[in-house]
């Protein structure tokens, strides 16, 4: 199996929205490479006729009635209680779009 490289680390950090410092990249690359090397051991297991498992007690789809449960609803104030930046009862976030420069 291919060895994990610095460019893989940069790629997954970008996918996971983690900004790494130079020293973190230097530290994490060999650590992650060693772990990836270790988990690659699984390739030796014959799983040709084996189905994958993601749920161990055999439940599949679980439904609930489509009803509003008022105990499960946070008031707007409670929902906003963890943030410092609000505006008219909404979460305030940084702009994710920039103004077009071609107009």
């Amino acid at each position, binding site marked *: 199996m291919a060895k994990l490289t610095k460019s893989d680390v940069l790629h997954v950090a970008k996918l996971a929205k983690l900004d790494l410092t130079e020293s973190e990249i230097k530290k994490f690359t060999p650590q992650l490479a060693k772990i990836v090397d270790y988990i690659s051991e699984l390739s030796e297991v014959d799983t040709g006729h*084996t189905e994958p498992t993601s749920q161990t007690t055999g439940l599949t789809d679980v439904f609930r009635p489509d009803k509003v449960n008022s105990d499960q609803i946070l008031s707007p104030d409670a929902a906003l209680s963890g943030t410092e930046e609000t505006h008219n009862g909404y979460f305030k976030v940084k702009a994710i779009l920039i103004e077009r420069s071609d107009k």
Partner: protein
Amino acid sequence: MNTPLTIKETQEGLKNKSFSAVELVDAYLKKINEKNKELNVFLTVTEEEAYKKAKEIDGSDKSLPLFGAVTAYKDLYLTKGVRTTAASKVLESYVPAYSGTVVKKLEEAGTIMIGKTNCDAWAHGASGENSDFGPTKNPWNKEYVPGGSSSGSAAAVASGMSLIAMGTDTGGSVRQPANFCGLVGLKPTYGAISRYGVIAMASSLDTIGSFAHTVPDIEIMFNALKGEDGLDASVINFPSPKKKSKYTLGIAKEFFLKGLDSEVEETVNKAVKVFEKMGITVKEVSLPHTKYAVPVYYIIQPAEVSSNLGRFDGIRYGNGRETFGDEAKRRIMLGTYVLSAGYYDAFYLKAQKVRSKLIQDFDSAFTQVDAIISPVSPTPPFKIGEISSDPLEMYLEDIYTAGINLTGLPGLAIPFEVSKKGLPIGFQILGPRFSEEILFDLGNKFHKEIDYKPSIAY
């Protein structure tokens, strides 16, 4: 006053008026004030809430199943109005707007919350050293780790700062610290207890675990907590299996791997002899995929971690993603890697298939035996700093525990011996899904046979 060791002792004392619930809280807080700085067990002590509840209990009819039981929660349990950090700087000042199901149920059963305990941040670790608020120390010897990730919960009970405690077990995080601190620890069957309102680590593996000094106390807690709440869709109501007069106990040769410490091996062998003396038939079983449990676990678990920690963006609550510690960053990246295009089939899908093989191993073993005895950790408690510099070495601590989460089975860690260095050492018994009652019966009978007397480290 000395803090009691069991729920029964607590309740008899309250009923006989040997002490009041307020005096009980005084005694636990005294312990906390004396030792918490040194051992770093609690991140938040809920003194005010504890006294309020104690006064309520002193004025009530004392009939609830857990009345008066002083309880500590791993800081992953959401507690309305009480800071909940996951031992991470990301949630350093997060105060939840609601409490989870376990906290509500224990509250209604008459417990007294005493505080929120330290742990490996986001439950990532096997020693307690990954906390963003400093490591917890083992109350039996503070140069040693208490185990993890539910480090503070185990240390709280072992040191008499709380009677019982709640933890979470995703790959051994209750059984291993219970083992390192000389406590009984239960990892229930996947889907036995609701995880609603507990910060998620890896959702196909996460279970609600508990710590106490005795098996009967663990049983009382389990009965108060199990069952559907309509809020965690993985939970199912289940019938309890019938206790038997004769059991067959399995032992797997694959557990005696290279790297198993001789003292741990001797302890397990000695426990097997006790079981035999009790008239239990011991039979060898085969679990051929045991050695793949850790690689499967370190694919599936980080994959689910990377997804669950994706929600922490610092916008609605908490700090930004730059405040994640090293271990969380490593697991997020490892999980993202095994799920990413080009690697999904080779890692994630492959791991899910080998997970099926592990399940087949155990299911086939349980057609021959009622339960299986196993080591908990491959080593006795180790020193702080001894292995924490190498993440992979720490992952190997999970060899005997992670497979149980991957297969969804229940496991009960049982304290037994003391290591040469004076630290606790024990074993675990594993059973088929929803066979907790059988594990309690076996654990109880074992402790009766050896005339086990729990004790507090201080």
